[in-house]
């Protein structure tokens, strides 16, 4: 459990791998929120990329 703001390599690795609930539940939850909020949807495909992957632009 959390008892100090300092951080060792194992704690950092666990949190960054999405497996830090046992070492710091509050920060693990925040990092999950970061993933959820920013990577919830794929980018809209524009014309140039769509041509490369043979998709209509804007189609997911």
């Amino acid at each position, binding site marked *: 459990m*959390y*008892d*100090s*703001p*300092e*951080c*060792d*390599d194992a*704690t*950092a*690795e666990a*949190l*960054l791998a999405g497996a830090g609930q046992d070492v*710091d539940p*509050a*920060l693990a939850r*925040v*990092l999950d*929120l*970061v*993933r*959820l*909020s*920013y*990577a*919830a*949807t*794929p*980018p*809209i*495909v*524009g014309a*140039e*990329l769509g041509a*490369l*992957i*043979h*998709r209509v632009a804007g189609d997911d």
Partner: protein
Amino acid sequence: MGDSSDRLDVALRGARAGDPDGFDALFRAHSTAVVGYLRARHVSDPDDLANEVFVRAFRNIRTVQGDSDRFRSWLFGIAHNVAIDDGRRRRRRLNETSLDAHVDAQLAAAGGDVEAEAITELERQLIRTLLAGLAPDQRDVLLLRVFSDLSVAQTAAVVDKSYEAVKALQRRGIASLRRVLHAQEGVPG
């Protein structure tokens, strides 16, 4: 993981041969992580820049050697450089006030689906505060690790720092997040 890696190796071989299905499979596998990284870096137009990352990658795909794991590392290297270039351009244009407004707009835009809508305004503010409190090189390393699934060694190659330097940035970045988070929650530390 093995099946996924094998499938992406096949997609990479196809893409190198010009097969649109190979490009499409690589895009499907990595696009949300790439755009998530760019959104978290608060670039000016994450969707547009994510397109730029994939167009650059796909047009130069024959220049990258190795397997799909190496491709992912190379792809995030492109995303990292695109974000740096965008930051330079924006620093010439934006003052801090408009940057804050832009960050709020980015987080609000990220709330466009059911999962993201579960994130409260307080949580959005908290994420913004935490990321803003990181030193730029700590933020770069933490966000690459959070979104890209790269190892420490791969991340070190992307940000052009040593393995030990990246580990130190991780430790300091996580410690910084913990200090701010637990100070807000009233936890002694």
